[in-house]
């Protein structure tokens, strides 16, 4: 029997890997991948707990909403990254330090 605890441990490890990627990497696309990993860790928890809510389907439903929100976030973030690249010719997050030139 797979218990809730197993899912939560996997999710905690995934969250920490995402955190490491966000802090350590300097490329904006890799930072975005780290954010996606952390979101996926949260979704895994929602789905694991959602098993114990058969009638209302709360966990699975909000996991679906979170997936859709992640898709919308990524689309906007990538549009911003492309704009930043057009202006600065780099997507290194350390070198982007001005709001306007």
């Amino acid at each position, binding site marked *: *029997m*797979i*218990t809730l*605890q*197993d*899912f*939560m441990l*996997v999710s*905690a490890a995934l*969250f*920490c*890997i995402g*955190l*490491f990627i966000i*802090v*350590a990497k*300097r*490329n904006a*696309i*890799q930072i975005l*991948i780290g954010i*996606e*990993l952390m979101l*996926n860790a949260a*979704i*895994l928890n929602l*789905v*694991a*707990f*959602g*098993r*114990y*809510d*058969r009638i*209302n*389907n709360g*966990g*699975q*439903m*909000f996991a*679906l*909403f979170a*997936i859709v*929100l*992640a*898709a*919308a*976030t*990524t*689309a*906007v973030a*990538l*549009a911003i*990254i*492309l*704009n930043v*690249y*057009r202006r600065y010719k*780099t*997507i290194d997050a350390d070198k982007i330090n001005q709001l306007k030139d």
Partner: protein
Amino acid sequence: MNLAQILFYIMAFVTLGSALVVAISKNLVRSIFMFFVTLFGLAGLYVLAVADFVAVTQIVIYVGGILVLILFAFMLSGKQTLDAVAQQQNKFISLGNLYAFILAALFLVVMVNVVFKADVNALPWVKTAKETGNVIPVNQSGINNIGINLMTRYLLPFEAISILLMIALVGAAHLSRKEGNA
């Protein structure tokens, strides 16, 4: 140790291993494709948590949508990225990465402690759900129930999400427009 448990361990290993490769790999293209493997492993974990609809949605949206978007953005900003990767050729734990590693490790310690202290298998509402049979059974998925709930109980979040998706679409199109013809 039954089959589901073995599958769970395989899926967890695939997910965490490929996520670690994403974190460690120097090659950005390779790390993006390993992210693909991570998403598939997560879909497998969702199936093992008896949420097959969420798993299919994960594959369709993440693998079909988000990953292609990320690859697209990477290809459009490619040259500079590869230069940045080339000068980052030092070893895995450099000084900058060390702080990140310590932060992530401390977070992991705290979260694992919390998980063990919280004792999630004995939560009151989980116990009640087990006693009253409110657990999704393994041999039938709740897709019908999901559809009914989406149109009744969760109708307001559903509509809010749809409006937000349209706003995001318009916003992304506006942001990625050419500068000159404003």
